[in-house]
Structures are given as C-alpha cells and as structure tokens.
C-alpha cells in the first residue's frame, strides 16, 4: 500500500546542492530517536519480517557482548549484519530507496517494542541492545548529517556562552581530557564548545569525573556530547517501553499479532535471535529422506542433536524430551511427515508395530500439527535447550560434565577435523558459561576446511543460536563447495 508513495531515485543533477533533497524524504535523517510511532497500515507479513530482521541484529549485538568483542569488532560485525538484513544508507546515497530502508528500521523498532515491553528483564536487554545499535549508527554517521539530526531535535541542553566558560575556565580546563601534551590540550580546550545539562543526564561522565559539576549542572565538552545523546536515547526508550507495557493489556490487539509477539520475545532470550523459522528459506533444495539422516548427522549436526541421534542408534530408543526435541529438529530440517514416520519406525526397531502406532505415531503427527490443537510447533532453540533441565535432552555444552563433554566432542567431531589440541579453548569458554560461543567455535573449527576462520561464526560473524541454523549453515557450506566442484567439472 505504500508502493504508490515510493519515489524513484532522484536523477543526479550536478548543479543541485545535496541539501535540497532532504525535504523530499519522509524520513529526513538516517538516525532515528523513534519518538513517533508508525501510523500506517502494514501487512502482517511485513510486520513480522521487519521485526525478525531487526531481531537478528540485536541478537548479534547481545552475543557480541558475551563473546567479549571489542568495540571495533562489534561495529564491523554489526554493520555486516545490518547490511544484510537492515541496510540503512546515508542521506547522500541517492541511488537507493532510503525512505523504504528507514521505514523498515522504524517499523521494526516499534514492533519489537511491543514484543519486549513485557518484562523487566526483556526491557532492560532490549534497551541495551537498541542503544548499542544506535551508538554504532551514530558513530558511523556522516558528520554533517549527524549535526543536522542533532539540531532537528531539542535535547534541552544549554550552550555555555564565552563569559561563563571564562568564569569557570580553571575548573573546566582541569577536567578537560585531551592530548598528553599540555599546549595542545589547552588549544583544543579553547576551541571546545560547552553544554550545560542536569548531571543526572550524564551519569557515565560524572562517574569518570569527565565533567565539571556546579550545583547540579554538568558542563559537558562538545566531544562528549554524544554521551548526552545516548543517555537521552536510553532514557527515552526505557520510559516508552514502560508506557507500552502499561498500555499493552488495553490495546485492542489483533489475535493474529499476539502469537508473533510471543514468538519474538521468547526468541530473544539467551542471546538467541528468533526461532529458526521455516525450512523454506533455508532448505537446501533436495528433500531429505529418512535414510539420509545418518549421513547428515555425521556431517552437519550440532553436538546436541548428534548426541540424540547417537543414543537413538545405540539404544534403539529415546526418552520423551529426546524424541520431542529431535523430532522437531528433523521436521524443520526438512523431513516430511511420511519420512519422519518412516525414520522413527525404523529407529525403534525393537518395538512392535502395534506399540509404535499406539504410542508414537500420534505424537509424531501431533508435532507436525496434524493432531490435537494442530499447532505448528517450532523446533527448540538454543535458548530453550539451554534453559531446560539436564534430564530433558538439553544443551550438552551446558549439562555435560567436562570429561563427558570432551569425550562427546571428540567422538562427534574427530571425523570432521577436531583434535584434542582444540579442546582446552572450548572447555575454557564452557567454563565461563558462554555455551553458544563454545558451540560456535566448534562450528568454526569443524568447517575450517571450507575456509571458515575464527571469529566468523557460522558465516558473517553470526553465532549459533538454533540447532537448525547450525545444520542449515553447515549444509550450505557443503553445498557451496559441491557446486564449485561441479562448476569446475563443467568447465
């Protein structure tokens, strides 16, 4: 419905000054404080995809914190992710539809607000991730455009005039941080513009004594101005989320939206983006047959699913949660209902047909949404596996004792190039409770033959967040290599 409003890129006229373009844009600035909610109709699909794409980025930011990435690394990874899922070009980029990009950014943010306002914990984490994203964008924004953005909004800071600056010159200079060389420091100080705000708005600067305080006013030098902006962003968002949380029960909500929101907010826990939705997007093309599972497990499964597969083969049986988790995993992997029944029937080969049909067939059909309430169950994500109890076939990185984990790792992955020399690094990460980081690192190690390097995660710096994502990515690597090989043969 917005198509009619989308504008064709401007034909570049060299005589036209760039600034004249701004008025034509619905969103004049790349940065957005999200003061105004989107007041237009959106399709349900757009509602969900905007949010999901944004969620991927936020989840990556969260997991970066767990992986202890430096600010520079974080910026690189996030920018790469942004480019993939949520590109946001500078106003000067005239060949792209900036308004559409910014609209998506705007919409995604507000959908996620709805999903993440529900609990204190979710709010806190959402604010943190969003603020970081804002900081990254602010950092990378063009200086001129940033200035224009800042002046477009009232930040309620009071510029300190020259007289006042002179009055407090001694104190301001003393707390001014700059070059180690005194004369240079003084020079930059003279040129510095100061702003006055209530100290409560810049607690980070106060904490480090980077400002001069007088009767509750903090004198903030221009180069620390971003602190005010970030604090403002954070405070605004926190307040807005609380307001949304209060309003949410009263909102006349569409019953179609609630499940989407639930799904989104669940997915964010434990540094996990969303459910690994649908195999459609990630299907590797060919249908997976029951007899292929053995081969796939050996090559592509994450440790959790590999262990389940292994014990299924060893014991010819799996306990309830094992069946549940593994079954759903296989469903999302691409096993059709018929193949799934075939697979399980063959796996439980010590069971009579009668018992299988009575006790298991229903459950398998149920998990495919063909029985009972006919819900399309999603496969368990890392978050769910991490938070489940140890007896419930959860994440081995979390629930196994160190010795068992090392044995399991070696027997699962030694065929894929993992050696005992790699174990100390993985075990150290596990010890620090960064289980998904450990899993990601294993992925990197076992896919190094495809040219995957440390820090690249499952590709593009993404970390493991879902067993199906792990398997799908692994299969992608494999397929890409095969395609290359085929291409070479053809040549």
């Amino acid at each position: 419905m917005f198509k009619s409003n989308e504008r064709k890129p401007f034909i570049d006229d060299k005589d036209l000054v760039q600034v004249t373009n701004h008025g034509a844009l619905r969103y004049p600035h790349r940065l957005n404080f999200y003061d105004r909610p989107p007041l237009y109709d959106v399709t349900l699909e757009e509602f969900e995809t905007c949010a999901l794409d944004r969620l991927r980025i936020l989840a990556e930011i969260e997991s970066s914190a767990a992986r202890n990435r430096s600010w520079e690394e974080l910026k690189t990874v996030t920018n790469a992710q942004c480019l993939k899922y949520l590109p946001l070009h500078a106003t000067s980029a005239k060949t792209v539809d900036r308004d559409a990009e910014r609209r998506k950014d705007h919409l995604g943010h507000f959908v996620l607000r709805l999903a993440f306002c529900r609990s204190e914990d979710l709010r806190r984490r959402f604010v943190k991730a969003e603020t970081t994203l804002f900081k990254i964008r602010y950092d990378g924004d063009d200086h001129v455009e940033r200035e224009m953005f800042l002046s477009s909004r009232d930040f309620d800071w009071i510029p300190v005039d020259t007289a006042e600056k002179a009055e407090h010159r001694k104190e301001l200079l003393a707390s001014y941080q700059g070059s180690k060389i005194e004369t240079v420091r003084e020079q930059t100080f003279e040129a510095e513009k100061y702003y006055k705000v209530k100290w409560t708005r810049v607690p980070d600067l106060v904490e480090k004594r980077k400002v001069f305080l007088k009767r509750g006013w903090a004198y903030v030098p221009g180069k620390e101005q971003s602190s005010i902006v970030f604090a403002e962003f954070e405070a605004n968002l926190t307040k807005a989320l609380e307001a949304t949380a209060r309003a949410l029960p009263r909102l006349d909500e569409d019953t179609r939206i609630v499940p989407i929101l639930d799904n989104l907010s669940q997915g964010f826990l434990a540094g996990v983006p969303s459910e690994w939705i649908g195999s459609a997007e990630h299907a590797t093309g060919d249908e997976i047959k029951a007899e292929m599972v053995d081969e796939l497990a050996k090559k592509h499964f994450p440790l959790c699913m590999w262990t389940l597969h292994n014990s299924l083969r060893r014991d010819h049986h799996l306990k309830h949660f094992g069946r549940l988790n593994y079954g759903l995993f296989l469903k999302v992997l691409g096993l059709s209902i018929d193949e799934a029944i075939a697979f399980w029937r063959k796996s439980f080969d010590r069971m009579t047909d009668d018992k299988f049909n009575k006790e298991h067939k229903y459950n398998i059909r149920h998990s495919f949404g063909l029985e009972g309430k006919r819900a399309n169950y999603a496969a368990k994500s890392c978050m769910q596996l991490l938070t489940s109890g140890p007896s419930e076939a959860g994440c081995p990185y979390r629930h196994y004792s160190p010795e068992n984990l090392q044995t399991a790792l070696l027997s699962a992955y030694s065929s894929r190039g993992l050696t005992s020399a790699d174990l100390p690094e993985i075990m150290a990460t596990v010890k620090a409770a960064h289980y998904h980081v450990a899993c990601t690192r294993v992925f990197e190690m076992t896919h190094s033959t495809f040219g995957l390097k440390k820090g690249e995660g499952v590709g593009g710096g993404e970390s493991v967040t879902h067993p199906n994502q792990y398997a799908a990515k692994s299969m992608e690597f494999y397929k890409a290599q095969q395609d290359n090989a085929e291409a070479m043969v053809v040549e």
Partner: protein
Amino acid sequence: MAVAEAVDTSPEVMLTFYRRLYPFKSIFNWLNHEHAPTRLFTHREFAFTLQGDVYLRYQCFRTAEELKKQVCQLNPTRFEIGPVYSFRPKDKKTAPPGAFNPVQRELVFDIDMTDYDPVRTCCSGADICRRCWAFISAAVQVLHVSIREQFGYEHLLWVYSGRRGIHLWISDKEAMELTDDQRKALVSWMTVIQGSPESSKKLNVRLNNRSLPPSLQTALEHLATIFSELVLADQNVFESQQGFESLLQQIPDLNVVKALRETWSEDPSRSSEAKWADLKSQARAYAKGSTQRINLTSAMEDIILHHTYPRIDAEVSKHRNHLLKAPFCVHPKTGRVCVPVDPERIEEFDPEKVPTVNQLLKELDSVARSEGEIGEHHSDWERTSLKPYIDMLDKHALRLMEQVRRDKRGRDVSW
C-alpha cells in the same frame, strides 16, 4: 569505649523510650514532606529488628500514629527506613510480578570509623574517642560542601549513628528520584579511596593528564590543614616504623625513599611533623617545574587525600533498596540515641556527650518528681536533653515542607 554508667537497653527501657520520647511526628514530617500522608510515607518500607535479632521487613504505615502503635507493640531494638515502593510494601505479594520496585529514596551516605583504622592510631575497630572523631568531622565538612556545591542539593540531614559513624540523608526531590545507576555515578565521583583497607594505596583521583579534578582540588586546600593538625600533630601517624614505612610506600621517587628511610631509621623518635617536613624539603630540592618535583608534589597531595578524604561505604549509597537505621533509634550496645548533627558545628560534636536512653529516662523521672505530676505527656521530650536534637529535625523537616509547598505553588502559577 569507656561507658561510665551501665547501659541498659532492656525491652522495658526501650518501650518507655518509644512511648514517651521517640519523635514519631517529626520523623513522619521529615519522610513525608507534607502534612497529609503521601506515598512518601504510606508506601515506605520500615524494617524492625525485634528482640532476639528477628528481622521483620516490608512493614508500612498510613500515619505517624499507626507507626507508633506498631513500634510500641513490637518493641524493636531498632528499626530501619527503606525506599518508597511502587506498591504498599505490605501488598508486596499481591503486586503483579516484577511490578514491585523501589521508586524513591533519600540519597544516603554512611561513613564508618572502622574504615579509618589504617590511618588512626588512638583506637581501632568499634572504639571511638574524641580524637579520632576528627576524621569523621573532616569527612562531614568535605562531603557537606561537595554535595551542595557540586550537586546542588540543599536538604541534608546528618545523623550520628550511635557508635562510631555518621549517616547523611538527602531529601531533595531530585535526589529522592535518582536511579541506582545515577547513585552509583555520584558515589564514584565522591570516592577517592577504593578497595579494601589492605589495598589502601589505590587512589581514584588523577585524571589522565595527572592533574587533580577541580572538585578534589578545592577539597584538598581544606584537608591540608586538617592533615597537619590531625594526622601529623594529633595522631602522629608516621612516628612508628610501620607508620613511616607505609608513608614511604606511597612515594614514587626511589632516591627520596632511600634518603628518608636512612634519616628516619637513625632517629626513631622523630615526630610525624618533622618527617613530613623532611619530605617537603626533599621535594624542594628538585628544580621547580621538573618532572621529579611534580611527581613528588602529586604524591604528597595523594597522601593528604588518602589520610583525610571521606571514606564512604559505597554499597549503602548505590542501591535504593538499602535500609538505613532511622534517626533517634537507640544503639543497642552504647545506649546512645542516633541524634541529628549540625554540620556547621561538627567540630564541637562529642559522641560521648550524646544522651543515652538511660540518661533520658532519668531526666524524665526527675522532671515528674519535681513537678509532682503523674501520667504521660505528649511531648515529654521537651523536658529532656533530647529537645535540641528534635528541634533540629523539626526545623529541617519544616524547611523541606516549605520547599515542597513553594514548588507546588510554582506549578500552579505556571498554569
């Protein structure tokens, strides 16, 4: 501490104290900021420590009378004041999950003499005397000025903690509403001596260009005088071998350290003042503006701050939900009442002159006897030595209420 008369804080004594002397109305006014009960009082957590160290949290009351009734009924050894919550603390369990949170709270500081053990020679641990109270009074002076000048807060109430420390309650509206993060930032700004007493050398003072932040520069001028009077002359901290060794540890210049150690080891009776003078002359031996001299002067400044700058118990101030003993409670060990202290006259304050609960009850008895009256009066405290202290709290509360009224009127006018 030498307590001349026997301290008796038995339940009977405490009950009489609460019934006849404790200024509930004044406490109510001070917490509530208005005459009619507001959330500041009704949603406020009180926590009682009952006889036998039973701890009772999340109590709350609608009025001063209700508080008095409950206190007299439970007869706690002391009670503490917590934050204002989003719900009445009593209804904690019925509040929706996650919705029961502290929303307002006086900004509080706690300075305790035990933190000064590495730099005092007269007493240690729980003991306190007139001499080492000077450390507290130095801290109060610095903090009082800093909070007012730098943060602009006006409504500061200093309260003696009953034994060896002092509390500060700041009731300005903005201070009440500070978040935990903001409190943490403020505490960091105020903190100079970090870490445990063992790692006492670590000072959080220098900016990256090695200069003192202006806030500390101002404090330093005042503290330098206190340093020579208190640390050098009175406490004579550097006289002992152990004392001067810890001083030498804080000097970065190895040549100076070596020279001083030789002189001082030869002359064990050399006073702290003389030693400090030695250090000064060592600094002067370097050319003005030379790196060595600057380093040495900075080190000397750090030493002064280290010995005299307020040592704040950061954990108390950082979190809104921290409980702090209410003013006018009785310290169970000393029997002394936690009375407000006038920061302008902090130097005259003598913790040993603070009335004990037993002394107050005796005063009551003699008043009753001389007047030949029987029965209780509503303002019995007026006839005891508690009066000036309660007047102080009343005056403080009055200023606060005045301010709130002014703010309200200001808002009305703006319409």
